[in-house]
């Protein structure tokens, strides 16, 4: 694709064509070129048009990318260097269809562009990323951006896809018509990035020249509102005009005004005009949108050419199967089954290897150090705790590989499509399933992803149930319990995968059930309307997936090396001190005498009805930090208890554990009940913190802890008592 960067041309800045107020307002800025202050660029465009890919290419950052709308839900700031080595600040913004924001992620974009965020400078220049396969719709948002009166650079992204679809765009003609640099390229292949950097390096950038007359019936209202907004509400002149136009685009002023309420004068003017139009039967908002689209349509007609009409594309043919009402579900189930099966089969070899290395390390410490507390701290605290959890790294990597596949191919949006029907039964729509599916990896990005949900109550319901989806931190707990439950390798991996699938199913069913309950009681609202764009399929981008896997692996190891290490050490202390007066006391007696033992005895009555003893209780408490801490806690507790000469895997020590009366502790029933407990219980401080931030109050996270952990207790109680009654 040809680079279409125009050489700097002092005469072609387009100022002559602009309405006088825009030209005037931009004069001071242009008189002093951005030599002192770092220029701030905003990267905007429709959802899933490749903004973050371009942002990563420019800044060298590694923000998450994926092939579904709504990957970026918060602004990201990065730095790039101009051709002359000057720093430039770039703000990557969530995708939006319009400045009249309908969801919290779009509101972020609106607020940054209108200069309302105190923590973010108002962008000096705007990079508009356009999806070349969908020029008309992309240009609608650009059209609104033009109203801001900032210099704009247009990037025509996905030119290869457009060409394949039989759309030819004359970038030069588009540039001439818009009066701003237009760069054609493909961000995924790095094409156009150099040209974009060159354009960004220009000291002077022209203002958009595209002429568009506000429809006559609305023009006087725009002028009046603009005056009121700049005088009464203190908006800068250009922002005032853009905001006036937005107020006349959307019925809901809150969507435009956001958290900065309008002055009484502006509201009065707005209401007066709306009443007048209502009396005349003028569809004011439709008129404005239509007028923009008419102007865009003429433009597109002149710059695009269809080389052939579009038949069913490859994506359509794939979709015929993947969103089929029967085949689609079959494929979905197969993907899930394959995921769990590979967690058990593929992970086994690296897991055994890590296991043997951890054991060898423990043996080495034992053989080189003389007996004493420090040695015990290392073997029973550090190695048993951290080693016990690091073993599960391969499984976590496999999970993230699968999630990455789903995210980068475009399947996420299809899963949302497929799930729309079951979701509508509980009162949500398919879009809510994207955050839920993301929560299989980790509830935190899942909860962030709810920002794409328009309705505040639906969003809250989704946030409340998202942590019920089994996240990657539960994986080690499930795996440990399944290993304890089904010893040896004699049993086929299928059985183990089946139990795991059951737990994931239980969590998902719980999420649906509670969503149904909340939508009917606490957070009643009418059934939501869903509109979701399905991106074309892409071959998976293994580089991105691998990068994401490495990031998650690093995070997992970092957690193991910091928080889990510290908790393991503290737990070792609590299980070792105070020491029993008789130094020859058996490890069982010693641990019962320790702080942890005494504390455990206090809480035991609360969990005994679930079949858990105080040692499991300690694990439940420590795993409030993060669920996987349960595994390391079991490692420490049973490591301490096993005494000196044992470096066997935790599962063997656990299998040997007994109640004081000699009955085995980890019966199959208890193992299952414990897994069920982790399915439902809210055991993650990070999630609580993120829910607090996203809902802006302590009310909902506290409610979440209460309802989830309460449910966990009740379900486990019922399951354990029923199991006992049935003779298990």
């Amino acid at each position: 694709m040809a680079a279409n960067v125009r050489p700097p041309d002092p005469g072609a800045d387009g100022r002559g064509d602009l309405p006088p107020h825009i030209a005037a307002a931009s004069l001071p800025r242009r008189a002093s070129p951005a030599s002192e202050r770092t220029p701030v660029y905003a990267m905007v465009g429709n959802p899933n048009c490749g903004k973050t890919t371009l942002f990563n290419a420019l800044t060298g950052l590694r923000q998450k990318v994926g092939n579904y709308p709504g990957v970026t839900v918060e602004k990201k700031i990065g730095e790039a260097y101009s051709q002359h080595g000057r720093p430039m600040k770039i703000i990557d913004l969530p995708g939006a269809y319009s400045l009249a924001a309908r969801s919290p992620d779009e509101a972020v974009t609106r607020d940054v562009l209108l200069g309302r965020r105190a923590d973010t400078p108002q962008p000096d220049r705007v990079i508009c990323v356009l999806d070349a396969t969908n020029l008309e719709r992309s240009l609608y948002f650009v059209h609104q951006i033009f109203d801001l009166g900032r210099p704009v650079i247009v990037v025509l992204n996905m030119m290869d896809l457009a060409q394949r679809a039989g759309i030819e765009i004359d970038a030069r003609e588009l540039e001439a018509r818009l009066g701003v640099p237009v760069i054609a390229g493909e961000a995924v292949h790095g094409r156009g990035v150099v040209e974009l950097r060159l354009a960004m390096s220009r000291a002077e950038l022209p203002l958009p020249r595209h002429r568009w007359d506000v429809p006559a019936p609305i023009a006087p209202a725009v002028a009046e509102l603009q005056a009121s907004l700049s005088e009464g509400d203190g908006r800068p002149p250009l922002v005032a005009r853009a905001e006036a136009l937005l107020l006349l685009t959307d019925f809901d002023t809150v969507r435009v005004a956001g958290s900065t309420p309008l002055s009484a004068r502006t509201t009065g003017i707005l209401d007066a005009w709306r009443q007048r139009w209502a009396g005349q039967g003028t569809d004011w908002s439709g008129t404005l949108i239509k007028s923009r689209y008419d102007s865009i349509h003429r433009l597109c007609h002149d710059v695009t050419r269809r080389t052939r009409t579009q038949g069913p594309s490859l994506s359509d043919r794939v979709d015929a199967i993947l969103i089929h009402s029967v085949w689609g579900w079959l494929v979905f189930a197969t993907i899930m089954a394959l995921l769990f099966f590979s967690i058990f089969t593929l992970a086994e070899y690296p897991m055994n290897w890590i296991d043997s290395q951890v054991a060898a390390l423990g043996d080495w410490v034992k053989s080189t150090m003389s007996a004493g507390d420090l040695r015990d701290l290392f073997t029973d605290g550090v190695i048993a705790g951290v080693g016990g959890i690091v073993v599960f790294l391969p499984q976590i990597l496999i999970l993230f590989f699968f999630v990455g596949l789903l995210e980068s191919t475009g399947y996420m949006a299809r899963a949302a499509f497929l799930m729309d029907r079951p979701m509508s039964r509980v009162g949500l729509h398919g879009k809510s399933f994207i955050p839920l599916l993301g929560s299989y990896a980790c509830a935190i990005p899942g909860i962030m992803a709810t920002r794409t949900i328009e309705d505040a109550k639906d969003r809250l319901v989704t946030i409340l149930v998202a942590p019920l989806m089994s996240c990657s931190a539960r994986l080690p707990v499930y795996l440990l319990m399944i290993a304890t439950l089904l010893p040896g390798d004699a049993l086929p991996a299928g059985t183990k995968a089946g139990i795991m699938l059951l737990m994931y199913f239980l969590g998902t069913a719980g999420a649906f059930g509670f969503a149904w309950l909340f939508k009917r009681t606490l957070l009643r609202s009418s059934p939501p309307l869903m509109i979701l764009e399905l991106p074309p399929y892409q071959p998976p981008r293994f580089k991105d997936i691998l990068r994401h896997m490495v990031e998650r692996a690093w995070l997992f190891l970092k957690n193991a090396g910091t928080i889990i290490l510290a908790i393991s050490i503290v737990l070792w202390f609590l299980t070792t001190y105070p020491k029993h007066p008789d130094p020859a006391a058996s490890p069982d007696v010693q641990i019962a005498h320790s702080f942890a033992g005494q504390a455990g005895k206090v809480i035991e009555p609360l969990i005994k009805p679930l079949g858990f003893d105080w040692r499991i209780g300690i694990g439940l408490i420590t795993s409030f930090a993060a669920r996987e801490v349960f595994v390391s806690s079991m490692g420490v507790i049973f490591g301490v208890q096993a005494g000196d000469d044992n470096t066997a895997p935790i599962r063997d020590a656990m299998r040997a554990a007994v109640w004081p009366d000699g009955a085995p502790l980890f019966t199959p029933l208890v193992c299952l009940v414990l897994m069920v407990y982790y399915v439902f219980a809210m055991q993650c401080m990070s999630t609580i913190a993120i829910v607090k931030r996203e809902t802006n109050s302590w009310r909902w996270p506290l409610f979440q802890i209460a309802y989830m952990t309460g449910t966990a207790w009740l379900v486990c109680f019922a399951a354990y008592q029923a199991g006992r009654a049935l003779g298990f």
Partner: protein
Amino acid sequence: MNADMQQIAALAIVALAVLGLVFRRRLRGRRKSCADGCAACPTEKLRR
């Protein structure tokens, strides 16, 4: 290393671990409220 020395060393490490847990927030630096530096997290410090 005799048993007493080992005990002192072990207790010192435990004390360090406790301090680390207590001052976790501060040690982690400016990242607030989120222990999970996932890519979707806005408070995640951007690296070059």
